C-alpha cells in the first residue's frame, strides 16, 4: 500500500475515517484514535522493510529525548550557543547520515518521512532556544511527528500550531465544516494528481523526449505543470485528510504560476517548506549577520542570505548536482530580484500596478520558474552531459 497512492489506501482510509467523524460529531477528542490509525498506516506501508520500522522507532525516541532534555538544558544554562548547536547537530545527524550514505548507493538509517520529521523536530529545538516552547508532551510530540497524512511529503506543520488543534475539541458545526472542506480538498487533490498530473506526464513522455529543442521545451513546460499537479494534488489530499482528524494542517500551494516575481513565487509554491527556511534559516542567519556587522551594505547581506538559504534548500532535496544547481539558481534569482526592487525602487513602485508591467513580470517569472523545474527534473544536466 502507498499513502494516497493506490485504490487500496483510499478504501481503507475511507473506512477508517468513519469512526473519526463519529468522534468529531459527538464532540469527543479524536487524537487517540487518530494516533492508532497513524500507527496502522505506518506499519502497513513499511511492513516489507521491518528494519526501517526499527530505525523509525529509534529515530523518534532519539528526537523526543533531544527536545525533552534540551528544555532542561535551556532552563539550566540559558541561551548557550555551544549547547544549542550541539542539539541541532544531533537532531539533524540521522538525516545527514541517511543522505550521505545514500551517495554510496546503500543508505543507512532511511525510512519513510525522515526528511519531513527532521524539519518538525529541529524547529522545536530552535523555538526552545528562543524560549517560545516551554513544555513537550510525549504523546503529542510523537503524534505530531508521525501524523500519517503529512508524514511522507508534508505540509510541514509547526508544533505550536499543531498544539492548538491537538488540545481543542472543535464544536460540532465547526468540525462538520472542516469535514466538508476536507472531503472537497481530497476530491480536488485526487483530480489534480491522478487526472491532470498523470495526463500531463503522459504528454511529457510522448512529446518531450525526442531530443530536439522544441521537444526539450515541451518537456520543460510539461514537467513544471506535472510537478505542480502531482505535488499540489498530494498536499491537498493530505490537508483534507488532516481536517477529518481535527488537525488543520497548513496550505502548501497558492496558484504558484500566477506569481509576479520570484519572492512572490516562494510565497505560493511549497509554502510550508519555503517559510520554514525563511523562519529557521534565512531570518536567523540575517540576525547573526546584522549583530556581527558582517556586511557593509544591507543589500549584500540580503543577497548572501538568500543564496545560502536556497542552496541549503537545494541540498536538502539531495546531493545530486541538479538539486544543488536548483537551489543556487533560486538563491541567485531571489538575490537579483531583491537588488532590482531596491535599486530600482522608484521605477518598480511607480509601475507595479500597471498592466504592461504586470504582464512582463508574470512572463519573466513564469519562464524562470519553469526553467528552474527543468533543472530540478535532472533533464537539463543530463542533456548537458553532467548527470545521468
Amino acid at each position, binding site marked *: 500500500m502507498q499513502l494516497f497512492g493506490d485504490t487500496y489506501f483510499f478504501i481503507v482510509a475511507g473506512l477508517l475515517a468513519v469512526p473519526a467523524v463519529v468522534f468529531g460529531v459527538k464532540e469527543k477528542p479524536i487524537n487517540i484514535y487518530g494516533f492508532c490509525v497513524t500507527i496502522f498506516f505506518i506499519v502497513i506501508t513499511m511492513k516489507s522493510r521491518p528494519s526501517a520500522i526499527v530505525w523509525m522507532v529509534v529515530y523518534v525516541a532519539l528526537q523526543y529525548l533531544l527536545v525533552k532534555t534540551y528544555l532542561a538544558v535551556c532552563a539550566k544554562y540559558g*541561551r548557550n550557543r555551544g549547547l544549542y548547536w550541539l542539539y541541532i547537530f544531533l537532531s539533524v545527524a540521522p538525516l545527514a547520515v541517511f543522505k550521505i550514505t545514500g551517495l554510496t548507493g546503500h543508505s543507512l538509517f532511511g525510512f519513510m518521512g525522515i526528511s519531513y520529521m527532521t524539519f518538525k523536530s529541529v*524547529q522545536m529545538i*530552535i*523555538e526552545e532556544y*528562543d*524560549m*517560545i516552547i516551554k513544555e513537550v508532551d510525549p504523546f503529542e510530540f510523537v503524534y505530531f511527528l508521525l501524523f500519517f497524512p503529512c508524514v511522507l511529503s508534508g505540509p510541514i506543520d*509547526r508544533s505550536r500550531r499543531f498544539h492548538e488543534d491537538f488540545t481543542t475539541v472543535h464544536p460540532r458545526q465547526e468540525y462538520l465544516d472542516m469535514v466538508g472542506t476536507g472531503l472537497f480538498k481530497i476530491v480536488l487533490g485526487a483530480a489534480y494528481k491522478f487526472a491532470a498530473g498523470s495526463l500531463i506526464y503522459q504528454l511529457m513522455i510522448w512529446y518531450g523526449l525526442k531530443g530536439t529543442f522544441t521537444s526539450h521545451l515541451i518537456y520543460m513546460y510539461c514537467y513544471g505543470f506535472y510537478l505542480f499537479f502531482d505535488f499540489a494534488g498530494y498536499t491537498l489530499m493530505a490537508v483534507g485528510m488532516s481536517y477529518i482528524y481535527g488537525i488543520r494542517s497548513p496550505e502548501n500551494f497558492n496558484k504558484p504560476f500566477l506569481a509576479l516575481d520570484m*519572492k512572490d513565487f516562494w510565497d505560493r509554491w511549497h509554502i510550508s517548506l519555503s517559510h520554514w527556511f*525563511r*523562519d*529557521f534559516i*534565512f*531570518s*536567523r542567519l*540575517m*540576525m547573526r549577520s*546584522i*549583530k556581527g556587522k558582517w556586511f557593509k551594505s*544591507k543589500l549584500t*547581506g*540580503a543577497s548572501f*542570505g538568500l543564496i545560502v538559504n536556497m542552496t541549503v534548500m537545494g541540498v536538502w532535496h539531495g546531493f545530486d548536482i541538479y538539486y544543488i544547481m536548483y537551489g543556487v539558481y533560486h538563491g541567485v534569482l531571489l538575490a537579483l530580484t*531583491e537588488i532590482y526592487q531596491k535599486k530600482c525602487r522608484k521605477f518598480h*513602485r511607480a509601475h507595479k500596478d500597471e498592466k504592461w508591467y504586470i504582464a512582463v513580470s508574470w512572463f519573466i517569472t513564469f519562464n524562470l520558474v519553469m526553467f528552474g523545474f527543468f533543472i530540478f527534473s535532472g533533464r537539463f544536466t543530463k542533456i548537458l552531459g553532467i548527470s545521468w
Partner: protein
Amino acid sequence: MEEKILDMLADICGDEIVKENPDIDLMEEDLMDSLDWTELLVWVEEEFGAIMSPSEYTREEMNTPNKVIAQVKKRLEEQNL
C-alpha cells in the same frame, strides 16, 4: 518607548509615513520585508534586551506599527524587562 520604536520603524522602512499612520499595513504597502523584519528583531534585542523569535509571529500579528508596539510591550512584560 513607543516613539523609539516608531523612529526605528521609520528608519528600517525608509519612510516617515509609519509615524503619521501607525495603522498602515507594512507588508501590503511594501514598507517591510522579511529582512527588515529581522533587523527590527535584532534592534529590539539590543535596545531592550527582549528576545523575539522570527518564527513566533504571523504576519497578521505584526503588520502595522501599532501592532509591533503592542507585541514588543507584551514581550517586555513577559520577560520582566
